[in-house]
Structure formats: C-alpha cells, structure tokens
C-alpha cells in the first residue's frame, strides 16, 4: 500500500508575487522562508508525490458546470493566472494514482468530476512551485503532484463535513493503491482574507489563531463546527478555504500540527499560516 506520511497547510496568496515589497522586509522574509522550510522538510522526507488540495476562484470552472470536487487525472499545466515569478509550466502528475482515487471514489459514493487535461490556478501552483518544485531542486529527486480542487470559494460550496469525508476517501484510496510510495498532502488556502469585497485588507489575527490552534490539535470537529456565517464574518470569504485544510487533515490523518510560521500581512491582504501535519 501507498501511504500519506505527512503534509502541510499553507496559504496561496498571489499578492506576494505581485507586490513582494509591500510589507516590511523582515515580515516578507519570514513568509518566504516558511515556504522554504516546507520545501526542505518535503525534500528530507521519502515522499515521491504530493496531493495538493486547493479551490477554484471562479476562473477554471464556470457557471455552466460548478463541480463540488474535481481531480486532475491526466495532463496538467498551470497556472492560468500567471504572475510575476509564477509562469505557466507543465506539471508532472501522478496519473495512475489520481485515476485510482477517482475510481475508488466512484466505487464508494464519491462522484469525482475528472479533469483529463487540466489548467490549474494559483491555489495549486503557488505551493507547487514554492514547495514541490523547490523540494525537487533541493533533493535532486522527482516529485509528482496531483491537483484536487474543492468548491470552497464558489457556491454551492462543499460542506465541511463532506470535505472531511472526501479527505478520508483520498486516504483510503491511497492506502489501497498497489505501490509502496509515500505521499505528502498539502491543504492550500486561508487563513483570514477578504477577496473582492469592501473589507479587503482586513486581517483577523484572533480568528487566525483559533484556526491555527484547531489545526495544531488536529481538531477537525472544531474546524467543521464553524458555520459558514461565522467563517465569513470572522475570516472573510477567503477563509471559506478552511475546507481545503479539513480535507487535507482528514487525508493525512495527522495526530497534530506544528506551527511553522504565522504572519498577519495586511499589505498582502491575508493572515498567512504555515502548519506541518505530523503523524504519530
């Protein structure tokens, strides 16, 4: 069986790329360094593939078909929304495992929408570049990456309870995959941020710390207990992305999380939290 042996919860903040010098240098450096820490830890692990759980921002999927969750099972490139320092590139997917996750889902009541040829957005591509590609550089080994997209920013949203079940299904599928590969999972998003609304630029440190504590305690129940109204009120529409955290935590089945870094950065309109998911 293959196994998910670790993972991270990290942000995917495009403003870092567009306005790298907006915050004070020390703060900015801590955030970039946090990605580097994740990359180093991935490089130090034996993982040969990473499942990145992100969400569309009403760009990849349109009003003619909004999936609750979608997995890329074939060709992958991205991001569609290129940024300075984040250009479109071909992505090395783990097609066999992705197809197995979709198939095992279909057999167990999880009706994955499937992307046979997919273009990612920054939700996948930021952690892919800063963690996966960087870990490849550091370690000199190849690491594939599977894009998973949840409906966390466009309604009808996936429920938090279903995001958790989906994470459990991903784990079961990985463990029934005929290989001895080790995997990491990355929950991409959050924490508090307000996108495209008049509160933009607000960061709610108290909410962010609540979320971080729940993640570090591996308290999925606690995360799932937030109502959407509470999340919207306290964390903004961007914080609906805690669904991605929940799914990744359930997939990793971590017993705890370790805070790598937290920086509230209004200049980057986001409370940026980095957590490593630890097993055992």
């Amino acid at each position, binding site marked *: 069986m293959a196994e998910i042996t670790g993972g991270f919860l990290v942000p*995917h*903040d*495009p*403003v870092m790329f*567009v*306005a790298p010098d*907006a915050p004070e240098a020390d703060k900015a450096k801590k955030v970039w360094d946090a990605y580097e820490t994740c990359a180093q830890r991935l490089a130090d692990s034996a993982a040969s593939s990473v499942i990145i759980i992100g969400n569309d*921002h*009403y*760009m990849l999927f*349109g*009003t*003619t078909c909004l999936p609750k969750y979608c997995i890329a099972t074939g060709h992958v490139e991205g991001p*569609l*929304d290129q*940024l300075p320092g984040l250009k479109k590139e071909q992505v090395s997917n783990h097609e066999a495992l992705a197809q197995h996750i979709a198939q095992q889902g279909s057999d167990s009541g999880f009706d994955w929408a499937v992307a046979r040829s997919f273009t990612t957005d*920054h939700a996948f591509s930021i952690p892919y570049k800063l963690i996966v590609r960087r870990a490849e550089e550091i370690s000199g080994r190849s690491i594939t990456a599977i894009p998973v997209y949840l409906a966390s*920013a*466009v*309604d009808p949203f996936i429920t938090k309870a279903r995001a958790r079940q989906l994470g459990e299904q991903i784990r079961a599928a990985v463990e029934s995959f005929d290989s001895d590969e080790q995997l990491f999972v990355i929950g991409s998003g959050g924490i508090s*941020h307000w*996108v*495209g*609304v*008049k*509160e*933009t*630029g*607000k960061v709610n440190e108290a909410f962010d710390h609540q979320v971080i504590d729940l993640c570090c305690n591996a308290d999925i129940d606690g995360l799932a207990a937030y109502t959407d109204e509470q999340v919207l009120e306290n964390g903004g*529409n*961007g914080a609906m992305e805690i669904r991605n955290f929940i799914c990744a935590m359930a997939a990793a089945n971590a017993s705890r999380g370790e805070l790598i870094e937290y920086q509230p950065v*209004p*200049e*980057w*309109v*986001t409370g940026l939290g980095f957590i490593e998911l630890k097993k055992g």
Partner: protein
Amino acid sequence: MKRDVLERILWSLSVDRFSKEKYREDPQKFLGRFPLDEEGARMILEFDVKAMQEEGVNPMLTLGYWIEMSPDRRVSSYNRKLGSDSAHSASIKG
C-alpha cells in the same frame, strides 16, 4: 436568475477571449444575447460592482471583471467603487 446571468456574463468576460472581443466590439449587442433586464445591463456596462455584489454576484467575479475589462483596471479604484476605505488591495483574486 438575475444573479446567475450576471455571473455567466462576468465569467465569460473574465476568461473567454472570444467573448471579450465581441463585448469590446459592441457591448450592447453582446449583452443582448442574454436574458438580462435594463438594470442588469447597466451594472455590467457601468462596472457597478457594488450593485452586482448586492445582487449576490460572487466577489471573485466582480474583481476579475474589473481587472480584465474596466477602463481603469486598478484595484484601488475598484475598492473605491465598492465604498472600501482599504489602504491595501489584493491585486488579483486571492
């Protein structure tokens, strides 16, 4: 229904190049192919992102539309249009 059609139009104008071209050539004609009332058309034509959000349109779309299609394109102007006093602004969808 109004929200749905507004979202479809904004989404098309954010990501579909053919739609963008057609809209730039003749906005009224482009909008004419959707079942949109006068007020809805006005929101699109005048980039009234505030009114669209009040109609329930997803802020990711109003922001994307503004950046792609508005004459100004600056997020600071977008924020002003929304009535925001934010000093900071996501320059793209977060």
